[in-house]
């Protein structure tokens, strides 16, 4: 409760400060709109459904691409950690592609898939896949050999050994990889939506882009706030509980 109050007070203070700056008329209202006008935009855009529709489109792209990235990245990492040949070939390629800023996939995705959902998904998947794969690979390599030995004496082998020992043992690495993958995917999706009009649906990035085209600063700021809130919620709802679990079980932070 105390934490909630201090957070509320802080953000309340920020809005007051913003209002004061607006009232001081230092900058043109076109550049610094009032908190009230942003609130009005958010209210109207919510009422006519554009905001909700865009949010749903963006989150859908993100979640589907992210899940595919994880589902592909986990086995990718397990395989490269297990076999030297795969590590030297696919592993090296993953490392290279992971260092590639995932926005760089956008031109290629557009040429391959056109202005479609597939292009958006592709960009998100490329942001997630390599990060998760490499983190899983690192995690598996960092599993103390004694866990494997202890499990083997108790009769664990093959798939059981991988699923019940090696994968959970590398969880702290995997989770930080998933978090990094999320960050890459989220950023590159926004970049893609801002710079490319996707004909199959207007996401939050497109809303941001239209705001700029119409010189509607209250829309730009309003959509930015929504994007920040989504990022915060993802952290609080998804990553925070996992990290708390890791912290409780391992006794260490995953960072």
């Amino acid at each position, binding site marked *: 409760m105390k934490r909630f109050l201090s957070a509320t007070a802080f953000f309340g203070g920020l809005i007051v400060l913003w209002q004061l700056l607006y009232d001081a008329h230092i900058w043109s209202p076109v550049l610094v709109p009032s908190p009230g006008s942003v609130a009005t935009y958010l209210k109207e855009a919510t009422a006519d459904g554009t905001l909700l529709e865009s949010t749903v489109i963006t989150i859908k792209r993100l979640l589907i691409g992210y899940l595919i990235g994880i589902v592909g990245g986990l086995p990718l990492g397990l395989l490269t950690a297990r076999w030297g040949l795969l590590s030297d070939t696919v592993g090296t390629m993953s490392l290279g592609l992971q260092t590639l800023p995932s926005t760089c996939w956008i031109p290629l995705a557009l040429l391959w898939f056109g202005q479609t959902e597939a292009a958006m998904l592709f960009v998100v998947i490329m942001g997630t896949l390599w990060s998760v794969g490499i983190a899983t690979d690192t995690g598996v390599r960092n599993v103390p050999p004694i866990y494997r*030995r202890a499990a*083997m004496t*108790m*009769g664990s082998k093959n798939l*059981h050994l991988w699923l019940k*020992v090696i994968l959970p043992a590398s969880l702290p690495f995997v989770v930080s990889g998933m978090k990094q993958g999320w960050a890459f995917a989220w950023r590159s999706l926004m970049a893609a939506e801002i710079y490319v009009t996707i004909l199959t649906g207007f996401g939050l990035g497109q809303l941001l882009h239209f705001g700029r085209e119409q010189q509607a600063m209250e829309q730009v700021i309003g959509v930015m706030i929504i994007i920040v809130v989504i990022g915060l919620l993802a952290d609080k709802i998804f990553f925070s509980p996992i990290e708390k679990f890791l912290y409780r*079980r391992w006794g260490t932070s995953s960072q």
Partner: protein
Amino acid sequence: MHSPKGLSWHPRIVSSVKEELEVVAPSKLSIDSVSKTFKGGRSGDVHALDQVSLKVGEGEFVCLVGASGCGKSTLLNIIAGLEKPDSGAVMADGKPIAGPGRERLVMFQEAALFPWLDVMGNVLFGLKLKPGLQKKDRLDVARYYLELVGLSRFERANIHELSGGMKQRVALARALAPNPRVLLMDEPFAALDALTREQLYGDIQRIWKARKKTIVFVTHNVREAACLGDRVVLFSPHPGRVQEEFVVDLPRPRDINSVDLAGYASRITRSLKGFTKPEVEVGE
């Protein structure tokens, strides 16, 4: 998760907790001229074991003592099935040991508990791999062993919350839970403080008596070996060889601080000094 419900019609795997907790016959181990060389180390090949032969009787408590590098841990790993000898034969109850198996469970120096599971989860790990047990049976069996090592209250504790001694107790419960015939212990108490260790000496003797296991116990602490073993086998390093054996003929439970025990320990130490450089810890 692994309860074989769909198979419950099969009469062979129907098993009750009572059956599961019955004392199983301990194994007889026979090690016959086993040699092992680790190739390509930084200092060239390491000749860990050279023509080592050893017999361990059913339900016997044998301690292997020697300086580091005498191959005693390697021998333990070979008995566990985690490593293969270059030559020689290792048999349990007349059958060659082909690989690791739950008949012979190992307790390592570091507890090797799984940090992603709580105490109960760790003790259940081996039980879940044993066919024919229902979920409730497994829980009952796990609770029995947690009680046996005195950790009933810590079922839901996380591993990092436990002290070193408690971790080794959980490791002991985990190793005992699938009811193995042989318990292999690789310096399990080396990292613990003297007081905790003394408690565990008492516990391990009590549990050994209650559960009737064949125990092979590796240590570099002579007094510990004399306290626990029916027999103490001395190894010499480079290459690892069996040099001498002592039968410790003292009543149990033995107290690590008793005078008789000190007598045995100093005799063993003297003998050990005859063929090793002074790397060995000679009691506390």
